[in-house]
């Protein structure tokens, strides 16, 4: 879902940078409060893992492919949506500048979609479903799927505003492809990782720490 340079007019790119900036600053503020002996190495490991898995495109039907974003997984493990915003900002910076994956002028809009929107929608859906009694693994699947799907729809609207995509067909194809990518690339992998952490090191998960305390 990385928007390349040239897909969004520069003046709109500037608006997206302005919208994303306060969220990025807030994620830095979160980190300066929350980072400790446990969370610094966790953050670094998650950054490496998210970068690697984003480089692995999984095939879906219609001659298309897609990969995990990972913001929701990071937010669940570190216990805050700000973790996902910070991590995706770092990952998108490296992808854009070093690997030409996603544009530079479109960094703001990409951080907004994959960092901020996917993470907040996904993390709070996860929290919501958990409150309704859904098991952690199932809630993480639903949250991860919703985060990716909703951010893809927002992305389609942004590209319509940019004059790049038609509205209805854009929503249809972005929605269709990412509904499938959301299941295999985002939901399943997030659920597996959270399931493994829950079984092997439940103390890492902030939600489990609170329960046992």
């Amino acid at each position, binding site marked *: 879902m*990385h928007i390349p340079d040239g897909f969004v007019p520069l003046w709109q790119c500037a608006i997206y940078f302005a919208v994303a900036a306060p969220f990025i600053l807030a994620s830095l503020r979160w980190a300066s409060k929350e980072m400790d002996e446990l969370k610094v190495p966790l953050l670094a*490991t998650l950054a490496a893992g998210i*970068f690697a898995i984003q480089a692995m*495109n999984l095939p879906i039907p219609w*001659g298309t492919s897609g990969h995990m974003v990972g913001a929701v997984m990071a937010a669940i493990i570190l216990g805050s949506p700000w973790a996902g915003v910070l991590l995706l900002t770092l990952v998108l910076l490296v992808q*854009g500048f070093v690997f030409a994956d996603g544009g530079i002028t479109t960094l703001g809009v990409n951080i907004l979609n994959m960092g901020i929107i996917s993470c907040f929608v996904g993390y709070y859906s996860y929290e919501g479903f958990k409150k309704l009694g859904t098991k952690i693994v199932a809630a993480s699947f639903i949250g991860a799927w919703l985060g990716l799907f909703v951010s893809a729809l927002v992305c389609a609207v942004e590209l319509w505003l940019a004059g790049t995509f038609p509205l209805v*067909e854009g929503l249809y194809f972005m929605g269709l*492809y*990412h509904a499938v990518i959301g299941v295999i690339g985002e939901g399943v992998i997030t659920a597996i990782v959270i399931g493994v952490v829950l079984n092997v090191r439940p103390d890492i998960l902030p939600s489990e720490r609170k329960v046992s305390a």
Partner: protein
Amino acid sequence: MRKTLVFGIAIALLIAGLAPFLASSNPDGLESAAEKFSSAEGMDYVAFNSPMPDYAIEGMGRTGEVLAIMIGTLLMLVMAYGAGMILKKT
């Protein structure tokens, strides 16, 4: 904790090593959608010349792809660790 992190980093590097062989080279969701619309042409605009575009090193084939993703993964590890340490102190 150290074991868990080493395990996590090992998985990241394993994925990095396998990605060039396993990853689908089909266009991703956004590129596929863009191909349907003629209005989405004009992708040649480049704002910045990246050293390793498309997760590859020129003239190095598959080896270059493995190297590129490995370098990226280690770079992320160092960058996020550095950012975390700096933010921890502030």
